[in-house]
C-alpha cells in the first residue's frame, strides 16, 4: 500500500487498547502433516494419473508464504481430447444407463469419503488457496460434502426435477471452476452432473489445482468407473480448449464475466448447453431500523469472508443516511479486531490473497479510490510482511462513478455509499451491469419483500449474508451470468427435458 490509511476517527483510546490486546493472541496452528503434498501431480484421465502429452508442467504455490508447493501437469489440446474421449466412452459405456439408484450410491460414497478425510481436504485447501482454516474446515469442506450428499438423493428422482417433464442426461459435461472455492466448486459442479447421468471433464483453476486432484483420488477410492470424472489441470488455454471442444455437450463455467463472454462467443451457434456463473458487485442495503450489531457482523461476513474473493460478496455497502455515521464508526472499530495472517492459524479471520496478480489488482483499486479523494480506512495493526496479504479496507466518501463503486475488486475492500429513500437504495443497488447478490437489512418485513422484488439479483440475503445450500438455487442475472446451480432449478441445467409422452 502506498496510500496512507485514515486513522479510524471513531476509535477512542479504549478501542485502540482493545485492538492492541487483541493482537496479542496465542497462535493455534492446524497441523500440516495430515496432508502429504506430492512434488508432482498428473492429469486424471480415464481413471489413471498421467503426465501431459507434451510433458509440460506448471507450479502451484502457497499464497501465504510464496513457497513452491508442487508441479502440476499442464493439459494441452491433445490431453483435453483424451479426457473428453474418455468421458464419452464412460458415458456410452454404461454410466448413462446405470439405474439412478446406483449413481446415487456412488455419490453417497463420495460424500462419506469426503467427510472421512475432511481435515486433510481443509488443510490442503488453506495451503494451496490461502483461505483461513476456520472457513475451509467449517464451510468449504462440509458444504462440498453436502452438495454430494444432496444430489446423490436426486439421482433416482429426476422425473420430479421439472413437473411434467421426462429427464435424460446430456452427455459429456465440461466444467471450469475458479480459485476462490476450489473444492466446493468442484463438488458443486460434479455432484449434479453425475446425479443426472452425465460424465465430467473438470478443469480446476491454475492457482488451486490440488484439492480437485485429491477429490479425483477419492472418487477412485469410491470405485467410480474410469472416465466418469476426468481432471485436466492447466491455465486458461486448457479451459478454453475444453469449453470449445466439439465433444462436450454442456459447459458449466464459474469465473470472470470477461471469460464468460468469450466462452459464449466461442459456443455461438453450436447448440452446446451452457451455464455461466460470473462476477458481481453485490449491494448490502442497510435501512435505518436495522439491528446494527447484526448488520456489522453481516457486512463483515459479506465482504471479508474468503478475503473478499467471492463473486457474490457484499462489496458495496448502501446505508441509509440517518445511521451511516454510527454504522461506519462501528465498522471501523470492528475491522481493528479482524486477524489477518496465517491461513492455517485457527484464529485467522482474513487469510492470504490468492495470487500476486490478484494482490496487485486489489492495490490498484484502492490506490485509485484514494487518488479520487475517497476516504480509506484500514486497521492500525500491521499485516504479515511476507506472503500475499491485504488488510480489510473500507472505502467511503464515494460519488458512485469511481471504479471501486462499479467494478468487481474480488478482495477485502468495502465501498460505502449512502441513500435516503427505498427507491434511491434500489436505484443505486441496480446501478451496475452485474446482478448476482444483494443484502437487505431492516426489521420491517414488507420493506424486505418490496425491496427484494425490485433488486436485479439472483440471490437476496435478508438480515443475513453469504448463506449457501445445495437445496437453494444460486446464480445471477444480467452480466453475472445465467442458469442456476443447486436446487431443482440447478438439476434442470444438467438434463435433457421433454414433455412426458412427447
Amino acid at each position, binding site marked *: 500500500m502506498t496510500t496512507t490509511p485514515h486513522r479510524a476517527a471513531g476509535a477512542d483510546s479504549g478501542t485502540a487498547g482493545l485492538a492492541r490486546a487483541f493482537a496479542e493472541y496465542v497462535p493455534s496452528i492446524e497441523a500440516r502433516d495430515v496432508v502429504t503434498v506430492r512434488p508432482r501431480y498428473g492429469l486424471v484421465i480415464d481413471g489413471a494419473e498421467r503426465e501431459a502429452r507434451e510433458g509440460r508442467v506448471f507450479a502451484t504455490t502457497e499464497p501465504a508464504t510464496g513457497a513452491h508447493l508442487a508441479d502440476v501437469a499442464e493439459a494441452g489440446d491433445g490431453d483435453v481430447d483424451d479426457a473428453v474421449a474418455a468421458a464419452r466412452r464412460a458415458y456410452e459405456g454404461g454410466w448413462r444407463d446405470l439405474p439412478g439408484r446406483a449413481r446415487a450410491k456412488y455419490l453417497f460414497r463420495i460424500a462419506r469419503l469426503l467427510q472421512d478425510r475432511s481435515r486433510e481436504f481443509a488443510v490442503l485447501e488453506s495451503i494451496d488457496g490461502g483461505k483461513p482454516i476456520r472457513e475451509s474446515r467449517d464451510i468449504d469442506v462440509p458444504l462440498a460434502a453436502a452438495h454430494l450428499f444432496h444430489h446423490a438423493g436426486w439421482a433416482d428422482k429426476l422425473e420430479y426435477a*421439472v413437473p411434467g417433464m421426462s429427464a435424460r442426461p446430456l452427455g459429456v459435461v465440461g466444467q471450469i471452476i475458479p480459485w476462490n472455492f476450489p473444492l466446493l466448486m468442484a463438488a458443486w459442479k460434479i455432484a449434479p452432473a453425475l446425479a443426472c447421468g452425465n460424465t465430467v471433464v473438470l478443469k480446476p483453476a491454475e492457482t488451486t489445482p490440488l484439492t480437485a486432484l485429491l477429490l479425483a483420488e477419492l472418487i477412485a477410492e469410491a470405485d467410480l468407473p474410469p472416465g466418469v470424472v476426468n481432471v485436466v489441470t492447466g491455465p486458461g488455454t486448457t479451459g478454453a480448449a475444453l469449453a470449445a471442444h466439439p465433444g462436450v455437450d454442456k459447459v458449466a463455467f464459474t469465473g470472470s464475466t470477461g471469460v464468460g463472454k468469450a466462452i459464449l462467443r466461442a459456443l*455461438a451457434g453450436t447448440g452446446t448447453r451452457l451455464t455461466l456463473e*460470473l462476477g458481481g458487485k453485490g449491494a448490502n442495503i442497510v435501512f435505518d431500523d436495522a439491528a446494527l450489531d447484526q448488520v456489522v457482523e453481516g457486512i463483515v461476513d459479506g465482504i471479508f469472508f474468503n478475503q473478499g474473493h467471492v463473486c457474490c460478496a457484499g462489496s458495496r455497502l448502501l446505508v441509509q443516511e440517518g445511521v451511516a455515521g454510527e454504522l461506519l464508526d462501528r465498522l471501523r472499530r470492528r475491522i481493528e479486531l479482524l486477524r489477518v495472517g496465517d491461513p492455517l492459524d485457527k484464529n485467522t479471520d482474513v487469510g492470504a490473497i490468492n495470487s500476486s496478480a490478484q494482490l496487485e489488482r486489489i492495490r490498484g483499486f484502492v490506490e485509485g479510490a484514494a487518488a479520487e479523494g475517497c476516504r480509506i480506512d484500514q486497521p492500525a495493526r500491521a499485516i504479515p510482511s511476507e506472503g500475499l496479504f491485504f488488510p480489510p479496507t473500507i472505502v467511503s466518501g464515494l460519488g458512485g462513478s469511481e471504479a471501486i463503486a462499479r467494478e468487481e475488486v474480488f478482495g477485502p475492500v468495502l465501498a460505502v455509499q449512502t441513500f435516503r429513500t427505498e427507491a434511491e437504495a434500489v436505484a443505486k443497488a441496480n446501478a451496475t451491469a452485474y446482478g448476482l447478490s444483494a443484502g437487505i437489512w431492516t426489521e420491517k418485513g414488507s420493506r424486505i419483500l418490496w425491496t427484494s422484488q425490485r433488486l436485479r439479483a439472483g*440471490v437476496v440475503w435478508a438480515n443475513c449474508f453469504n*448463506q449457501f445450500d445445495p437445496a*437453494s438455487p444460486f446464480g445471477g*442475472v*444480467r*452480466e453475472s451470468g445465467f442458469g442456476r446451480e443447486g436446487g431443482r432449478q440447478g438439476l434442470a441445467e444438467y438434463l435433457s427435458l421433454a414433455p412426458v409422452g412427447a
Partner: protein
Amino acid sequence: MTGRLEVRKTYKLFIGGAFPRSESGRTTPVTTPDGRLLAHVAQASRKDVRDAVRAARGAQGAWDGRTPYNRGQIIYRVAEVLEGRSAQLAGELEAVGVASADARADVERAIDAAVYWAGFADKLDALAGGVNPVAGPFLNLSTTVPLGVCALACPGTGVHGVVSLVCPAIMAGNTVVALAGGPAALVTSTLGEVIATSDVPGGVVNLLTGDHAQLLPWLADHDDVDLIDLSGAPDGSAADLEARAADNLKRTVRTGGAEDLLTAMAFCEIRTVWHPARI
C-alpha cells in the same frame, strides 16, 4: 359505377401502443400469389428497433408489477379479441396465398395458445419456484423474475408464430419486441390492433414488420435487450446472432412457442431470497 368502394387499410408498425409508419419511410409491397397489390406494409428500420426497445423498457416495470392473475386476464382478453377478428386474420393469410383451411387453423391455434398462456401466469411460480429445504434456520424462497425486454424472431408463417412467442414472454412479466415478415406481415400488423384493444398497456407488446436478416443483428446487439428468441431466425444466422448477443450476456433461446413449462422457464430467471427463521 355502382356499389360501394372499399376502404383499404394501411398496414403499419405497432410501437408503444401507437401505430407509426416506419421512421425510414420504407415499405414492402405485399401481393396476392397472382401479383395483385394488397398493401405497402411498413418495413421497420434500425431506428424503429431502437424505438421499440425503448418503449418496451419503459413499460416493463409496471407490467412486471401487475399481479400474475391480472396479466392472465389481459392475455385472455387478447384471445377474446383474436376470436372476434379471426375471419379478418384468416382472410389476410388467404390473400397472400395460404390455403383457406390452413389459414383458419393457424388463427385458431393462435387463439388457443393465448388461452393456454393466459392460464399459466398464476401457476408459474408454483411450478418453477418454491420453498427450498435448506440445512439451517432460514426461510429460503425461490420465485420467478422476468428477464426484462425480450426480442422475438417470429417465424413468418402466420398469426400463431407471433402469438405463440409473445404470450409466454409477457405472461412471465417481460415486455417484447416481436419481429415478423413474409406471409405474416399483414396479420402481424393487424395483431397490433388486437393487442391495442385488449387492455395490454402500451409498450408491453411492440410489433415490427420487416426483414429478419436486416433487423435481427440490431436486436442481438442491443444492450437493453435481455433475451432473444431465435425461433424464427433464418437458417445459418445463429452463430453470428449468438456471438452478438454475448456482448451483454443476453439469453438466447429457441422456444418454438411450445406450450409447456420449459417455454415458460425460458422467459424467466429465478430469484432466491433468504431470511433467518431464528429469533
